[in-house]
C-alpha cells in the first residue's frame, strides 16, 4: 500500500523520522561474501575502518535476523538461485547493497559463468563500484544508504516500501 509523503500529520512525520533514525543506526548486515571483495569487507569491519561506529558491525548470518543484505563478491550463475532464496527469506524492511563491481554489472568477468550484476536477480538499493572498493568507499555507501533510509516515510499504518 503506497502512501504519499506529506499526507500524514506532524506526529506521524516525527514518528517516521524517529523510526528511520532507529533503523539507519542499527543495521544488521548479512554479508553474503563470495569473493575478493570479502577481504575488503573484513577490512571495513575491522578496527582500522570501523563499521561499528555506524552501528552496522555485527553480522547476522541468518537472513531471518538481518535487514541489510550486502552481496560481496561475484555471483556466478550457480549461486544466483541461492542469492534469490536468501533475499526472499529476509523480512521487510530490507535493503540490498551491491558491493563491488562484479555485483553491480558483472565486473570484467563477461563470460558464461557470471551474472552481469545482481540487479538481474534481486532489487538493489546502493551500488558500490570498485574492484575491490576501498573501505572509505564502503563507508560512504553506507552513509548514502542511511540517507536513503532516513528519507523513507513510515506512517502509522502501512509502509511506502514495495518489495520487488
Amino acid at each position, binding site marked *: 500500500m503506497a502512501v504519499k509523503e506529506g499526507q500524514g500529520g506532524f506526529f506521524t512525520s516525527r514518528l517516521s523520522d524517529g523510526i528511520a533514525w532507529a533503523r539507519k543506526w542499527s543495521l544488521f548486515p548479512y554479508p553474503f561474501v563470495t569473493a575478493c571483495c570479502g577481504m575488503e569487507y573484513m577490512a571495513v569491519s575491522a578496527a582500522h575502518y570501523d563499521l561499528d561506529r555506524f552501528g552496522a558491525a555485527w553480522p547476522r548470518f541468518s537472513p531471518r535476523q538481518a535487514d541489510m543484505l550486502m552481496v560481496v563478491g561475484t555471483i556466478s*550463475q550457480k549461486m544466483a538461485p541461492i542469492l*534469490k532464496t536468501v533475499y526472499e527469506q529476509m523480512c521487510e524492511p530490507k535493503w540490498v547493497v551491491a558491493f563491488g563491481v562484479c555485483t553491480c*554489472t558483472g565486473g570484467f568477468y*563477461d563470460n*558464461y*559463468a557470471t*551474472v552481469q550484476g545482481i540487479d*538481474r536477480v534481486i*532489487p538493489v538499493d546502493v551500488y558500490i563500484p570498485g574492484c575491490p572498493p576501498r573501505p572509505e568507499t564502503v563507508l560512504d555507501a553506507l552513509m548514502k544508504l542511511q540517507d536513503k533510509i532516513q528519507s523513507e516515510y513510515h506512517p502509522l499504518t502501512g509502509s511506502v516500501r514495495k518489495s*520487488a
Partner: protein
Amino acid sequence: MTDANAHAHPVIACLSARFGDGLIETHRHRGDATAVVRPDRYREAIAFLREDTDCAFDFLTDLCGVDRLELKLKPRFEVIVYLYSSRTNSRFRLKTRPLNDADPVIDSIVDLFPAANWPEREVYDMFGVRFTGHPNLTRILMYEEFVGYPLRKDYPVNKRQPRLPMREIPDDRPGMIFL
C-alpha cells in the same frame, strides 16, 4: 616427432624401452620432460611410472585437459598428467589423446592416484572427456542443468545459461548500460 635430446632423459628412456611404439612423441621443451602415449597404453604407463623403481613417481601434481581444435590437430582432446617423484626430486609430464573426437573416453587413474578424483571430474565438466572407472563422474564446477562443455573451443565465451529468469531492468534510468 621425437626429440633426440629427449631420449637422453632417464624417464623417457625407460618409457620408450618399455612401451616402444606405444609412445607417440616425446620432447623437452624448456626443460619439461614430456611423453605422449597411446590411449590404450595410458593406464599401463601411469602404473609403470608409479611402480618402477627407477622412476618412482609417487605424487600426482595435476591432471588437466586441452582442446586442440584451433591448433588443427587430431585427435582433438588431450589429457595431461603431471607427476612428481619424491625419491629423485623430478617432474614428468605424460600426455594422452583419446581417439574419438565426438565422444572422448579414457581410463581413469583414481585407483592408482587418489588425487586424480576431482581433476578428472573437472576435465569431464569442462571438456566432456569421460573417464571409465571413475567413482563419481559428475559436474564439479558447473551446475547440473548446464548443457555443453565450457572450455571447448567451440563454446562461445558469452553464452550464458541462467538458472533462473533474469529480472527486467528498466533501461530508461540515466547512465544505465543494458546488457
